[in-house]
């Protein structure tokens, strides 16, 4: 039984093509199609319903200590109103999930987790939080809209005064009012583009969507579905849970060491990560040389020796290239190395290239 986000009826009105994803019925694309939606975010602006994402809050005197024990990043010197990316590891050092953490007060943290991992995450966190931390899953009461693209600032400026628009990357303002609706706004997203995510009570979602659509029309804002969300994050080389990271892959293997603070006291998975030492595999980019398109879970060979597999791949609309991310033997991960990818029984040539594929010019 799939759930509907508060914007389900809007997606039908916008003629979205609905598919089940992470336990929710969501639009994979609108009639414009994935390519146009992708390009809208790179060139103008796109609007996404990401209300399926899970929201879990940690409150109380020990909330910070609980976070530092549960997650790989260090939250000790974090300012209020900042946002930080982290992994949550199991005892073996594998990834239970990746998530972002908002610090809303000294004793109040707001965590955004993957929809499909929400219940697993909650259970794990509840089991391991310290005494004096109160955990709550508030996902069902929160709607999340992502406004992404170079025109996002112009659009949001029509709805909010400058002091209510966060400017620094990965920062948030907890309480702003858009046409009377209380929202939290942050400079976050999953597209590699500048933009905002807006959190509001579920009952405001439809009104907020319509308002953004109306104010965005002069900037060619269009609604974007899950298809474009995936191609945009892949082009920006961001990991997706279940692809680049899983319970069997460590954050270090996935190239996410920046969010793992081995110097902090203790956290779940630290011991295993120490024991494993330097990772033997590496996340890299691949670009097709032969004609063809790489998809996920295709084997990669160097001189007939299996050296890894692709984790995500497709034809990327802005760069107009067939690209993939892959996890391969670190020893053979040098950019410029020519490998063969088994694409449905045919071994086709591809070249290892640096990540990220796309990085916006600031």
């Amino acid at each position, binding site marked *: 039984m799939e759930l509907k986000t508060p914007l389900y009826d809007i997606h039908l009105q916008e003629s979205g093509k609905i598919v089940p994803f992470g336990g929710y019925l969501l639009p*994979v*694309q609108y009639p414009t*199609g*994935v*390519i146009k939606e992708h390009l809208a975010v790179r060139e103008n602006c796109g609007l996404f319903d990401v209300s399926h994402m899970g929201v879990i809050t940690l409150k109380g005197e020990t909330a910070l200590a609980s976070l530092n024990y549960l997650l790989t990043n260090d939250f000790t010197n974090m300012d209020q109103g900042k946002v930080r990316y982290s992994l949550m590891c199991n005892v073996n050092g594998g990834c239970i999930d990746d998530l972002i953490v908002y610090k809303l007060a000294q004793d109040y943290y707001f965590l955004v987790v993957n929809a499909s991992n929400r219940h697993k995450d909650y259970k794990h966190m509840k089991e391991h939080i310290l005494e004096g931390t109160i955990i709550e899953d508030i996902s069902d009461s929160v709607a999340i809209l992502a406004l992404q693209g170079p025109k996002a600032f112009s659009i949001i400026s029509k709805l909010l005064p400058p002091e209510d628009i966060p400017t620094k990357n990965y920062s948030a303002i907890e309480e702003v009012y858009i046409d009377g609706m209380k929202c939290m706004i942050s400079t976050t997203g999953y597209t590699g583009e500048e933009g905002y995510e807006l959190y509001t009570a579920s009952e405001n979602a439809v009104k907020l969507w319509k308002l953004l659509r109306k104010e965005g029309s002069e900037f060619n804002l269009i609604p974007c579905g899950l*298809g474009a969300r995936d*191609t945009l994050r892949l082009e920006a080389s961001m990991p997706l849970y279940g692809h680049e990271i899983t319970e069997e892959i460590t954050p270090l293997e996935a190239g996410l060491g920046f969010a793992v603070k081995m110097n902090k006291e203790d956290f779940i998975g630290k011991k295993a990560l120490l024991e494993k030492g330097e990772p033997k595999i590496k996340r890299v980019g691949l670009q097709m040389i032969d*004609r*063809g*398109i790489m*998809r996920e879970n295709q084997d990669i060979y160097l001189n007939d020796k299996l050296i890894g597999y692709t984790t995500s791949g*497709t*034809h990327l*609309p802005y760069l107009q290239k*067939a690209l993939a991310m892959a996890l391969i033997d670190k020893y053979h991960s040098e950019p410029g190395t020519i490998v063969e990818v088994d694409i*449905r029984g045919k071994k086709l040539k591809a070249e290892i290239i640096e990540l990220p594929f796309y990085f916006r010019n600031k």
Partner: protein
Amino acid sequence: MFNYPKKLLYTETHEWVKKEGDIYVIGISDYAQDALGDIVFVNLPEVDDEVFVQEPFGDVESVKAVSDLYSPVTGVICDVNEELLDNPALLNEDSYKNWIIKVEEVSETEEFLDAESYREFCESQG
């Protein structure tokens, strides 16, 4: 919602067929191109390749997925629409005008659906 030209024959794997004399012209239906989404790559066979009824002769890739093309006939390919190699999006623009292969020396065909039966089949797919 979708276009099902009456003069064409169809298969349950969403190819269309038009008979021009002894030659069978083959493409994919409007329903198929819509289900695939933005098409970015077409893998085509070559002239003189043999094709076999209900067996793959190539594939179409969209941003989302890859889908096999099934031959509705057994025969020998006499023409391939090479324009699709450079511009696969033509299949999204008009999947009936933009045929994929032409087959001659046809010795076997599958049981085709007429436009009305094919429409009913597609609508039953939800």
